[in-house]
């Protein structure tokens, strides 16, 4: 596969390491009362869609960026690639 890195252009996926669902950005608050349940769902349950899927890749043999890749799990077509840091900020994460 080829991942079109937002800064570096198309790169062979073998430069990257795949982690999993982009929802892993949404780490729950560990100090909340329902933290145990929230963390269970966060870490263990997956939509695992057959179709469009947002996932995290790490440019290990590249610029060490984490990326959010939107890819179809039936066709492998990639429709967008974003810097995960930007995505995280957009979703309200900061420090």
């Amino acid at each position: 596969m080829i991942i079109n890195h937002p800064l570096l252009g198309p790169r062979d996926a073998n430069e990257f390491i795949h982690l999993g669902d982009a929802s892993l950005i949404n780490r729950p608050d560990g100090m909340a009362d329902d933290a145990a349940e929230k963390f269970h769902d966060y870490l263990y349950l997956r939509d695992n869609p057959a179709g469009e899927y947002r996932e995290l890749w790490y440019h290990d043999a590249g610029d060490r960026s984490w990326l959010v890749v939107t890819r179809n799990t039936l066709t492998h077509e990639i429709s967008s690639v974003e810097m995960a840091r930007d995505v995280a900020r957009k979703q309200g994460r900061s420090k």
Partner: protein
Amino acid sequence: MANLTQTSSLNGYDQPIGDMRLREITDLDLTSLAIPHKGATKLKTAIKNGLSLSMPTPMKSTADAKSRLLMTQPDQIFAMTPRSKHAESTIRKAIGDTAYITDQTDAWVVLELSGPSSRTALERICQLDLHPDVFKKNQMARTTMEHMGSMIIRTDNDTFILMSASSSAASFLHAVEISVQHVS
């Protein structure tokens, strides 16, 4: 007590192979300059003033006869400057505290491959498109070669700098050497 003597990863390897030359470069300081949160503009000015170079962009290095700057990560610059006694202090003199400076001189082995067949040789080890219309002079990339993290910079038409981790320098040299031998 006597000063400690230095060694280089490949003892200054330098060989002609076919129409190419492959050599180790050992006269550089290498430092990483991490850009503080929201500090890019400041660093850019400092680099302009202190190193007389413009800020590199993600795939394009900036260079003069002595020094070269690369963007290795979205918030990290990599400087290749003439070898000095203490890399971090030397850079700090130039740019002050506008970046978090870390000496990387000993973390990398630096090779230079030059000669008419160098691109053909690199076809056997580098998966990037090195066609001169695509990968132009001063363009750089981090990639993987024979499972080793590496950096490649085109410094001239037929001249490339290849870098990889210093601890596996011998394996990296072997991989490049074999590629060169297989096409010559």
